[in-house]
């Protein structure tokens, strides 16, 4: 078992990020029955202390959708969106016109969870197919809070293995609407080794 991720492993995770986000776009298009475009995902390895700055500062309001992964692989996956992107996404999805002053209703929140479910699910399906490993995801949990607080969860989990976090930035657009979100995938160390082995990387 290694103590930290080396460059080769990061490259593999990056490629998985590309494939996963591609799958997620297809899933989103099908659900909305509209053509959704995706920019090439940006995969970054970020120092823990700079994590929140990416999301507009520690106190910026974000939504975090978190699923636990079990099966052959154990870990968590989180999808994070800035509040502005949440609004745009819901407006597209539910055909609504939520403005920045509006509070989100129960229906908005469950729609958001469902989006998270689809986005994380399609990513994990891609990963599962590629590795031949079973990955079962839990029902998604949603939290709205300051970016620093939401990100403390993955930062802590990842912090057990090192001082950097892996972020996959995805940018979906539909017409003029841009939805920017971030995937954070954190497999447990043993699970990470399993993924690497099944891909013939170790």
């Amino acid at each position: 078992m290694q103590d930290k991720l080396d460059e080769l492993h990061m490259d593999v995770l990056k490629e998985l990020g590309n494939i996963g986000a591609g799958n997620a776009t297809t899933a989103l298009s099908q659900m909305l029955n509209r053509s959704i475009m995706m920019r090439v995902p940006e995969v970054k390895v970020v120092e823990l202390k700079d994590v929140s700055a990416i999301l507009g500062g520690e106190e910026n309001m974000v939504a975090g959708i978190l699923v636990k992964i079990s099966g052959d692989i154990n870990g968590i996956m989180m999808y994070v969106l800035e509040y502005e992107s949440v609004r745009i996404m819901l407006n597209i999805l539910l055909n609504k016109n939520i403005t920045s002053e509006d509070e989100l209703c129960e229906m908005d929140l469950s729609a958001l969870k469902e989006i998270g479910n689809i986005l994380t699910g399609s990513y994990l399906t891609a990963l599962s197919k590629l590795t031949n490993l079973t990955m079962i995801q839990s029902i998604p949990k949603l939290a709205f809070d300051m970016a620093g607080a939401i990100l403390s969860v993955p930062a802590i989990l990842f912090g057990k293995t090192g001082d950097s976090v892996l972020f996959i930035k995805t940018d979906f657009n539909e017409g003029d609407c841009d939805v920017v979100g971030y995937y954070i995938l954190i497999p447990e160390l043993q699970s990470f080794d399993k993924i690497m082995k099944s891909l013939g990387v170790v």
Partner: protein
Amino acid sequence: MINSEDIEVVKVGMADFNIVKNPGMITTLGLGSCVAVVLYDTKLKIAGMAHVMLPSSKAIKNNNNRAKFADTAISDLLSMMENEGMRRQNLIAKIAGGSQMFDFDSADDVFSVGRKNIQACKEILAEIRISIIAEDTGENYGRTVEFYTADGSFKIKSVGKPEKII
């Protein structure tokens, strides 16, 4: 209450610690499951703050970053303060944070880290005989915290909740 605009402000990041002198303010933004530990010298009015991420450096192999763990961060912060001439018997502690951001089963190891962080900080402070005179911990929301050296007040700000001073 002193206005934060007129005084020196020291910002403590995640897995980081620092100190500030009277009349300065020391702050950390968007605390989640992490814990902010403030040590305050009531005579010299100097405060130190550590933003702790994990309970123990002993449980983890990759533990080079001492500011990340409750045990090493509090010990290093204390040394830093003692080097500045502060005396342990004049120190009091206030702590905040350690929330559970997502409502998974709290028995789950992974998601109970907030609670474990609080517990670890309390144990370490008890060991070094510094008493905790106020805390705002647990729950399921984020906190921005500001400690004012002039009067020793600890301000807690959360989204959609009234400000608290402890």
